[in-house]
């Protein structure tokens, strides 16, 4: 337990002394704020347009605009997550191997599991810190909407973003443990995340059983449910399994470094 905390503490310290964390978080906040602003403006424009139409044709349609904005915001957010998580994980093992510090960790009285979990939770914490300021946009939206849309859209959306992020971080960390080169690790993670996206896109419109299976395998399909405020147990189990699988594979991969010729 002490070993786990030591690794976690060290990772957090490293994120915040290196410029990577600031740049990644800064870029993410800038883009997400821009995106949010865009969706709000778009919603207002649409509302005005519909109001004009209703004056001509009568019967104003009943659309929950704030919820629409949130849904649009969340379902675009994963594009950023796709690009940002590889940046957070590319160095976690590749750098340690390159610098030779992996030898220090592996000859210390701590287990591989403690190292892997410490690093994973540190990257997850940074990810959560990165998301935190975006909550203010949505709270602002909720407070200025009348009637107020249900909180579950907000909570479900964040649960989805967080779980999707955690899955991609687990995947990225695993890929980083396979190489000594940060750039290769980042590219592999992009490719991996993109592959999962293609799996979802390709299967989205298919009605066959294969299509459904492929859609289930991709973490993005499960994410869509969350953006509608639906928290499905099967999705929760899916993400938990995905994360567990890659954390486990990372532990095995770190352990296997002992058997390779260094």
């Amino acid at each position, binding site marked *: 337990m002490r070993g786990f905390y030591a690794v976690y503490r060290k990772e957090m310290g490293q994120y915040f*002394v*290196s410029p990577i964390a600031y740049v990644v978080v800064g870029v993410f906040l800038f883009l997400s704020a821009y995106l949010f602003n865009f969706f709000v403006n778009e919603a207002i424009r649409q509302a005005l347009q519909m109001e004009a139409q209703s004056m001509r044709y009568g019967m104003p349609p009943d659309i929950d605009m704030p919820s629409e904005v949130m849904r649009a915001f969340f379902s675009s957010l994963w594009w950023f997550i796709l690009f940002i998580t590889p940046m957070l994980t590319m160095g976690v093992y590749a750098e340690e191997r390159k*610098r030779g510090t992996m030898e*220090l960790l592996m*000859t210390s*009285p701590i287990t591989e599991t403690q190292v892997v979990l410490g690093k994973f939770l540190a990257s997850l914490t940074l990810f959560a810190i990165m998301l935190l300021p975006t909550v203010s946009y949505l709270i602002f939206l909720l407070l200025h909407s009348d009637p107020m849309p249900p909180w579950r859209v907000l909570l479900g959306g964040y649960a989805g973003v967080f779980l999707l992020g955690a899955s991609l971080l687990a995947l990225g960390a695993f890929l980083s443990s396979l190489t000594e080169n940060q750039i290769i690790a980042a590219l592999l993670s992009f490719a991996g995340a993109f592959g999962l996206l293609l799996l979802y896109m390709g299967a989205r419109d298919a009605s066959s059983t294969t299509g459904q299976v492929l859609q289930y395998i991709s973490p993005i399909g499960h994410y869509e449910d969350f953006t509608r405020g639906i928290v499905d147990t099967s999705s929760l189990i899916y993400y938990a399994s995905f994360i567990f699988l890659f954390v486990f594979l990372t532990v095995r991969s770190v352990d296997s470094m*002992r058997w390779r010729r260094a």
Partner: protein
Amino acid sequence: MIEVQDLTKAYGSVTAVDHISFTVHEGEILGFLGPNGAGKTTTMRILTGYMPATSGAARVAGFDVSNESLEVRRNIGYLPETPPLYPDMSVETYLDFVARIKNVPPEKRRERVSDALEKARITDKRTELIKRLSRGYKQRVGLAQALVHDPRVIILDEPTVGLDPKQIIEVRHLIKGLAGSHTIILSTHILPEVSMTCDRVVIINKGKIAAVDTPRNLTAQLKGGQKIRVEARAPEKQLQELLARIPGVNRVQIEGARADGGVTATVESAPGQDVRSQIAAKVVEKGWGLYELRGVSLSLEDIFLELTTEDSADATPPN
């Protein structure tokens, strides 16, 4: 304290360490001497639990390195060939982190860190970022890292590499000061280092142990005989003939004549015979000027070369 039995490590078809056995007693400094690629680092990595052996067993502080790895690691301080440092950390933060992963209890951590800083003589650099330190200081931070949890066994892979002569002397001093309370293995390919710091030497070449002994015994045992250096003002040929005729002399080698007529010869004599007085008498008798006459003991360098090249014709020369 450390027992190694028939240890073997093969990387595919290459055998890096080939059935080696040796023991290190408590409080001793053992030198691991061998050319690059002899298997020193591999042996050390097996002892520290970094990699498993292909076969054979090793025990450190009473624990088996393969079955009780965590216990072994708790008792070992290890400085790898390249010090495992995080460049963005300050020296103190780094040592605090190492103390944490080495299971130093929280209440003792500050004390242990400042103790390690003190021993490695880097107390004045403790707030400095590691990336701003010179090569020599980085090496010392690496050394402090190996000491921070006060381990019973310390394993140092080429601890003086990259240091300037003054720093080398300081580090050797530090290592000698640790002996007694710690058991130490250090590897090197620098010979004087071994004779200066170590109680015993393991000479390793191509994965096999060539010799194990004290530096002094190795020097004495290898050649029962003696080498004598003679420098005289004499005709080259005649000097050689004269020396060769002295009873007890096995071999005479003329090393060169100087412009002023001085000739240097190396005489090898049979074990147990001191031929120095006879050489002096004969040379003087001839009326040649005797400039120098002294016994030369074999240096570790000679022993090393001999041990690492004699067993096979294609042996790689040590660098």
